[in-house]
């Protein structure tokens, strides 16, 4: 018996080590390629003494912290309402809708936001029509925060809703028996459940906003609003200065690591209360006040998220749409996007599963390493990863054949943090609930996967797959370096149209992309959710 258990533990450890080595290898190789093989550039040290860089770093932190705070604050009542209203028409689609903003190419999403909030947007026109005072201009910090909340509030709401839905049924029955008032339910049940995932969600959003690029450039209003990610891109453009880009990336990683460790201090261990019941839906508060509050928050979130998406869809409904749908260029791009995204999603799941194994070892520092790797990869600029790897592949003469593999890998790494946030809490709970039982009964390997992990994790796995599919399909960053005529994805085609006055066709493509992502997410979630339920 001890030998068997020992084998299982060492298998877990090697899986995690392999994933860590893969991630570290991918990053370090890219850095090496860019530093040693790329021509030109300035000295490293100058970057850290440049007052401009520090101003940029300060702004980066400030807007990212504010964005994370606002997103979480908005998401809390929304998630609470969504968890409390477990059944209403369109709930599944609403939740799916909440994953869309993050999956869209940023330029498309920004145009959608401007359709609503812009100087010539619906709200401004409505104000003009009714004679009410218009909105103050949104370009500047306001616009950046607005867009970041649009991207990330839905993400936070999904993570928080999932946390609330995992609360064991006994809690709710006990609350009912004790006739706990709403404030007490919030304080003793709902808030602690959310508080466990908030630091993680906040960190994810913080990182996403710290590395924000298109949003900051377009809505920031000018060079006074600049993030490190923007500075990195600029260093690799006209100046083509890889050492400066590397130094800035390093600064970005260091700053985010500091935030990572600060937020980690607030992360509490998962609730390990053994529950014999499958998680239960949060019972609805039936009094009118609760109903009204829930309707308000769900409605507000739905409008806030859906209106810009509706604007994108409406802009796409032009006479150009029909010939566009029939064009071979579109079919090729759809296929290329689909293959790349599927490969990226598969790799994301494999990597996160391997990293999750670190949690089985009851070694906090090992688990912290997994967490760090799965989180920080997000702040490594894809343009740096892409450029570094491109040089290496080019030296090997393989850039044409391996470019798609590289793009899929970069996309997989970039969606890893999302999959990790989604999979980690249920995985920990499965471990806390059945870990000892499995050890006692010696259920390991595939048997454990089939009997214990799959039934408990198939929905989160479906969700993680869906999100990483969507993220990879909408991504342009990683493919920008490898442009070629045989390898064109949907966002690439879209930007190409935008680059030659073809605004209407680009809008049509945005609509197609929107529908495509939605369909894929529904499919991926269905694969995770509809399999035969065999509760252990």
């Amino acid at each position, binding site marked *: 018996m001890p030998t068997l258990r020992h084998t299982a533990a060492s298998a877990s450890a090697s899986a995690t080590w392999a994933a860590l080595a893969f991630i570290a290898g991918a990053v370090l190789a890219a850095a090496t390629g860019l530093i040693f093989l*790329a*021509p*030109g550039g300035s000295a490293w040290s100058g970057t850290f003494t440049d007052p*401009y860089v520090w101003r940029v770093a300060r702004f980066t932190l400030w807007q990212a912290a504010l964005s994370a705070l606002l997103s979480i604050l908005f998401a809390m009542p929304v998630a609470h309402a969504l968890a409390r209203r477990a059944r209403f028409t369109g709930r599944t689609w609403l939740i799916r809708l909440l994953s869309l903003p993050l999956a869209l190419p940023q*330029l498309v999403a*920004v*145009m959608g936001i*401007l*359709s609503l909030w*812009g*100087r*010539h947007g619906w709200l401004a026109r409505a104000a003009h029509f009714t004679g009410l005072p218009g909105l103050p201009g949104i*370009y500047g910090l306001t616009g950046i925060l607005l867009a970041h909340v649009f991207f990330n509030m839905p993400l936070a709401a999904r993570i928080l809703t999932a946390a609330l839905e995992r609360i064991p049924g006994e809690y709710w029955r006990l609350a009912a028996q004790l006739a706990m008032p709403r404030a007490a339910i919030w304080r003793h049940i709902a808030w602690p459940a959310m508080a466990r995932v908030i630091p993680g969600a906040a960190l994810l959003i913080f990182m996403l906003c710290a590395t924000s690029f*298109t949003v900051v*450039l*377009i*809505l920031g*209003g*000018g*060079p*006074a609003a600049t993030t490190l990610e923007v500075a990195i*891109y*600029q260093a690799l*453009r*006209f*100046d*083509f200065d890889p050492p400066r880009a590397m130094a800035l990336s390093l600064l970005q990683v260091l700053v985010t690591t500091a935030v990572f460790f600060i937020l980690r201090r607030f992360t509490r261990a998962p609730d390990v209360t053994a529950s014999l019941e499958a998680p239960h839906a949060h019972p609805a508060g039936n009094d009118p006040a609760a109903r009204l509050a829930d309707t308000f928050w769900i409605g507000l979130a739905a409008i806030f998220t859906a209106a810009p998406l509706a604007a994108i869809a409406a802009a796409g409904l032009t006479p150009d749409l029909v010939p566009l749908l029939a064009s071979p*260029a579109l079919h090729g791009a759809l296929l*290329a996007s689909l*293959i*790349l995204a599927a*490969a990226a999603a*598969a790799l994301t799941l494999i990597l996160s599963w391997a990293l999750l194994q670190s949690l089985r070892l009851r070694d906090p520092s090992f688990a912290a390493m997994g967490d760090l790797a799965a989180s920080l990869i997000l702040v490594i600029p894809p343009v740096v990863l892409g*450029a570094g790897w*491109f040089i290496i592949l*080019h030296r090997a003469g393989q850039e*044409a*054949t*391996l*470019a*798609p*593999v590289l793009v*899929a890998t970069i996309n997989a790494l970039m969606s890893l943090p999302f999959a990790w946030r989604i999979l980690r809490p249920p995985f920990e709970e499965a471990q806390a609930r059945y870990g000892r039982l499995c050890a006692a009964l010696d259920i390991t390997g595939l048997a454990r996967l089939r009997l214990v992990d799959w039934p408990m994790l198939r929905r989160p796995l479906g969700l993680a797959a869906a999100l990483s599919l969507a993220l990879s399909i909408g991504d342009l960053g990683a493919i*920008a*370096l490898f*442009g*070629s*005529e*045989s*390898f064109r994805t949907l966002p*690439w085609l879209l*930007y*190409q149209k*935008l*680059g*030659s*006055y*073809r*605004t209407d066709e*680009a809008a049509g493509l945005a609509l197609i992309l929107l529908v495509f992502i939605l369909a894929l997410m529904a499919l991926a979630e269905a694969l995770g959710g509809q399999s035969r339920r065999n509760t252990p």
Partner: protein
Amino acid sequence: MFKTISVLILALAALAAPVRAADKPVLTIYTYDSFSADWGPGPAVKAAFEKTCGCTVKYTGLKDGVSILNRLKLEGSSTKADIVLGLDTNLITETRASGLNAPHGLKLTGLKLPISWSDGDFVPYDWAHFAVIYDSRRIKTPPRSLEELVSGPAEQKIVLQDPRTSTPGLGFLLWMKSVYGPGAAAKWKQLKRRILTITPGWSAAYGLFTKGEAPMVLSYVTSPAYHMIEDKTTRYKAAKFAEGHYLQVEVAAAVKTSAHPKLAHDFLAFMITPAFQDNIPTKNWMFPAAPTSRPLPEAFGKLIKPSRTLLYPPQVVSKNRKAWIAEWLKAMSE
């Protein structure tokens, strides 16, 4: 699971460049992707050149001129490019510094450019002046000079591009500099009131403009021709500035390490013949740099004609770019 993964790996491999017929030499051209796009000049140019060259033309479509140069720098002497097409005059010095371009060896007589051209490495293929494009439905009295643009009402906004990432953005910076010289920083501070936002590239800026977010945008003199011909509207017009307009000339060059120097030379020569140039006006929306076989479309005759051409020599731009951008950055972030 493993079956799925192996299928995915095979599919990924299939995405890579398909195998080509091995008997013909391949001429690889790095260009920007609105040139190589289905609707760009690329496909017609490829077909016309392949008729006579006994070769296959292959485009690698990159984002823009700067990306072409950076890709070339990344690849160094092992680049597969035979031709780079789509750089502009501001990138010439940097390209030359990479030591990767080859002399064209052509007698460039009969070019149709607003300036004289004597560069021994780079061959121009099209050009246009930068211009402020305005929405005539919302602006009745457009600025008649750069000075009027700078000092005009703050509520009429313009969208510009970032000179650190975009060629039109750099073009406008040079325009301001060539008109105002050492006083440019003060003028930028004055203009700042009218700037809605500064985008990373032309596409986003033009998208904001056509969306109605701002009634003015920095683009090209030729932009209204697109709207006249494709959208059948004269709504978007270029404002003619009294101080003159800054010029962009797009160029191509052969790559020194090319395995097909003769083909590359032939392509550059072909580039300034009507078979190539005929595709420029209505597919690249620029002015041809050499004679075409038929007159330009009527819409091009209706475009404004700048009274003066402004252009810094490439060496001057290359020498001062960093300092001028730093000056701009300071003026704009205060």
